[in-house]
C-alpha cells in the first residue's frame, strides 16, 4: 500500500471537514468560551465571570417567556404544517391538471425569500389597511389585531410559517405516498379494508420515515425562527413573540452583551441536543424501516 492510497481518503474528506470545523465546530467552542465572559465583542476589557451569565439568564423572567414562546411556536408550527401537509398530500396524490396546479401553487411560497414573505404578510396583517382585516370586515366579523396584540401575534407568525412550509411538506409527502407499492393497496382492498383502516394500518406506517424526517426538519426550522420575527414584530408586543434566536441576536448585536448572548446560545444548544436525542430514542422505535 502506497502512502497515497493511505492518505487519499483523508484528502477527499478534508475540504468538508475543514469547512465544517471552521464554521460549525470552532464557533461552538468559541461560543462556550465567550459564555463565561462579560464582554461586548470590541472592548479591550474582557471580564471572566464564570457561570454568572447562566445564573442571570435563568433568573430572568423574560428568558423564561422566550423559552415558552419558542416552545409554543415550535409545537404549533410542526403539528399544523405536518398535519395539514399530510391531508393535502392525500388529496393531491392524483394526476390531473387541476391537482398539478394546486400543488404548484402551494409550493410557490417555498421558493420565495423569507424576507419578502415577512414584508408581504406585514402588509396583509396590517390592522387598519391590511387585506385580511378587510376580508374579515366584509364577512361581518370584528377586526383582528394580528401582530399588534400580544394575544394574537405569536399565532399570526405561526400562520406565516405554516403557509410558507406547507407546499414543501406536501411535496415530500406526495413523494412518500407514491413510493408505497401498489400491490400493498391491492392486498388491502382484497381484504376489504375500510379507508380509515387503510390509512391508519397501511399508509401511516409506510409513511412513517417521511413523517419522522419532516417532523425533525420542521422542528429544527422552527427553533431557528428569526427572519419573520426580526422583520415583522421584533419580539413584541410585550415580548409576546420573542424567541430564542431573536433573543440571542438582540443581546449580541443590539445590546452588545456577547457573553450573555453566548450563554443563551449554549442553552439553545443543550435544549435542542436533548430534544433531538429524545426524538431519536422515542421515535426510532415507531418508525417503520423497509
Amino acid at each position, binding site marked *: 500500500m502506497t502512502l497515497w492510497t493511505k492518505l487519499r481518503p483523508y484528502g477527499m474528506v478534508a475540504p468538508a471537514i475543514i469547512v465544517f470545523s471552521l*464554521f*460549525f*465546530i470552532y*464557533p*461552538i467552542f468559541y*461560543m462556550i468560551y465567550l459564555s463565561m465572559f462579560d464582554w*461586548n*465583542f*470590541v*472592548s*479591550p476589557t474582557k471580564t471572566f465571570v464564570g457561570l454568572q451569565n447562566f445564573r442571570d439568564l435563568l433568573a430572568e423572567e423574560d428568558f423564561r417567556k422566550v423559552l415558552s414562546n419558542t416552545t409554543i411556536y415550535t409545537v404549533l408550527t410542526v403539528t399544523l404544517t405536518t398535519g395539514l401537509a399530510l391531508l393535502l398530500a392525500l388529496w393531491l396524490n392524483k394526476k390531473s391538471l387541476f391537482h398539478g396546479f394546486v400543488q404548484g401553487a402551494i409550493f410557490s411560497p417555498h421558493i420565495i425569500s423569507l424576507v419578502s414573505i415577512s414584508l408581504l404578510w*406585514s402588509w396583509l396583517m*396590517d*390592522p*387598519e*389597511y391590511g387585506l385580511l382585516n378587510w376580508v374579515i370586515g366584509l364577512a361581518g366579523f370584528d377586526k383582528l389585531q394580528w*401582530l*399588534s*396584540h*400580544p394575544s394574537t*401575534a405569536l399565532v399570526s407568525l405561526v400562520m406565516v410559517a405554516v403557509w410558507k412550509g406547507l407546499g414543501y411538506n406536501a411535496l415530500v409527502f406526495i413523494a412518500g405516498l407514491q413510493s408505497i407499492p401498489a400491490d400493498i393497496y391491492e392486498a388491502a382492498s382484497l381484504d376489504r379494508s375500510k379507508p380509515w383502516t387503510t390509512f391508519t394500518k397501511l399508509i401511516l406506517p409506510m409513511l412513517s420515515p417521511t413523517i419522522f424526517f419532516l417532523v*425533525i426538519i420542521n422542528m*429544527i426550522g422552527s*427553533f*431557528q425562527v*428569526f427572519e419573520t420575527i426580526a*422583520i*415583522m*414584530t*421584533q419580539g*413584541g*408586543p*410585550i*415580548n409576546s413573540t420573542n424567541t*430564542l*434566536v431573536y433573543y*440571542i*441576536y*438582540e443581546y*449580541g*448585536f*443590539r*445590546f*452588545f*452583551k456577547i457573553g450573555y*448572548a*453566548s450563554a*443563551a*446560545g*449554549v442553552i*439553545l*444548544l443543550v435544549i*435542542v*441536543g436533548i430534544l*433531538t*436525542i429524545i426524538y*431519536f*430514542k422515542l421515535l*426510532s422505535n415507531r418508525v417503520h424501516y423497509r
Partner: protein
Amino acid sequence: MIKKFTALTLATVMTATLAACGSNGAGGNAATNSPNAEGVSAGSSDKIVIKYWYAFGGKAEEAKKHLVKEFNESQDRIEVVAEHQGNYDDLHAKVQAAFAAGNAPAVSDLEIASTGVFARSGMLEELTAFAERDSAELQLEDFNPGLMGNAYVDEKLYGLPFMRSTPILYKNVTMLKEFGLDPEGPKSWDELEQYARVLKEKGKTGMTVPADIWYYEALVAQSGGNMLSDNGKSAAFNTPEGVAPVEYWKKMVGDGLIKIPVGDEAGATADKDWANQLSAFKFGSTAGVNASLEIAKGSGFEMQTSFMPANKDYGVPTGGCQLVITANLSDEEKEAAWTFLKWMTTKENTIYQHKNVGYLPTRLSALESEDLKAHFQEFPQYKVAVDQLEYARPRPMESAYPEVTKIIREAIEKSILDPNTAPQDAMNEAAEKANKLLSK
C-alpha cells in the same frame, strides 16, 4: 449498536448546526463583504480610499450621496465610498461586527444615544486633538450648543453633529379649520385632549402615535422629569413625572381619543393615518418635514408644524446622528476621515441637508445666513424644530440604555394594552429591572 451510534452522531451534528446558526449567523451576515476594507490606494496616484457607512434611505440617503459625490469631486486626494446599512440598529450592529473583524468603515453615522457605548468600548477615535488643531477652520463653537450634549463622552469629543433632529408636532391645518379648531393649537396636553374630543365627534382620531421611546422621553421632559438619575446609575422614569405620560396616553386611548398602535409597524401606521387624513396630528422627527410637505401637497391639505404640546413646560430630546471616526486607523486614514468630517459639517452643507431633508441646521452661522432666513420665511414648517431647540436636552448615553429602553417600551405597551395594569406599577417594575442594569 450501529444504529444507536448513528442516531447520536446525527443528534450532535444537528444541534451543532443549529446552535452555530443561532449565535453566529447574524454576526456573520452583518460583516459585509466590501472590497475596500480600509484605505487602499487606488490606481497609480496616492489617492486614499475610505468607507463611509450611513443609515436610512429616502431623502436622507439622497442628500448624503449628493454630499459625498461633491466631496469626491472637490479634491483629488481622498475618495469616499458611501454604503447604505439599514436603520440605526442595523448600522450599529454592522459597525460593531465589522470592527471586531478589523474591517470597520473609517467614518460612520452614529445615533447619538449610542455614542457612550461606542466610545467607552474603544471603537471611536477621540476628536479633541483634531478639533483643537483645526479650531480656526472647524469653529467648534459655531455648532448649536443644544446639539453638542451627545458629542462628548466623559468630556472628550467623539463626534460632529450631522443630521440632527428633534420630534415635532405635525398638524393637518385644513382638518382643524374645517372643524372650527384654532390651527395655532394645541399648545398643551389639555388642549390636545380637547381638540381630540372634537375630532372624535367628527369621526376622526386626534392622533396616532407609537409608544416610541423617543416620544416618551419628550413627554417626560414636558412633565419636568428625567429618564435617569443625574449620575446615570438608576432609573428616574418611575417618578410621578415619568408616569404622567403613560397615564395620559392610557386615558386618551381608553376614551378613544388617540390611537397607539404597537409592534414593529407602529411608526408606519401612525404616518399612514396622518397621511390618509384619519388623524389630525402626528409626532415625527424634523427629518420628515420635506417628505411630509410633499404628502400634504399631494393629498391637498395644508400642513403646519409646531412644538410638541407642553405639560408643565415644553421639552424634547434631540435625536438623529453624528459623524464619527472609528479607532485603529492609520494616520493617513485618520486625516482623510477628519477632512471628510469637517467638509460634511460645514455651514454650506448643513444648510443643504436642512433644506433637502429637514434635519436641523447644526451651525449658528447657518441660522444667521440670508439663505436660511429666506427659506424660513417661505416654509415656516422648517423653523419650528430650530426654535424648539431652546427646550431640547441630550439623550441618555449609558451603555445599558438601549436595553433599558426595551424594558420601558414593554412597560408602556403593557400599561396601555392591559386595562388591569396600573402605569405606576408597570413603571416601578421596569425601574427595578433597569436599576440592575444601570448600577453595574
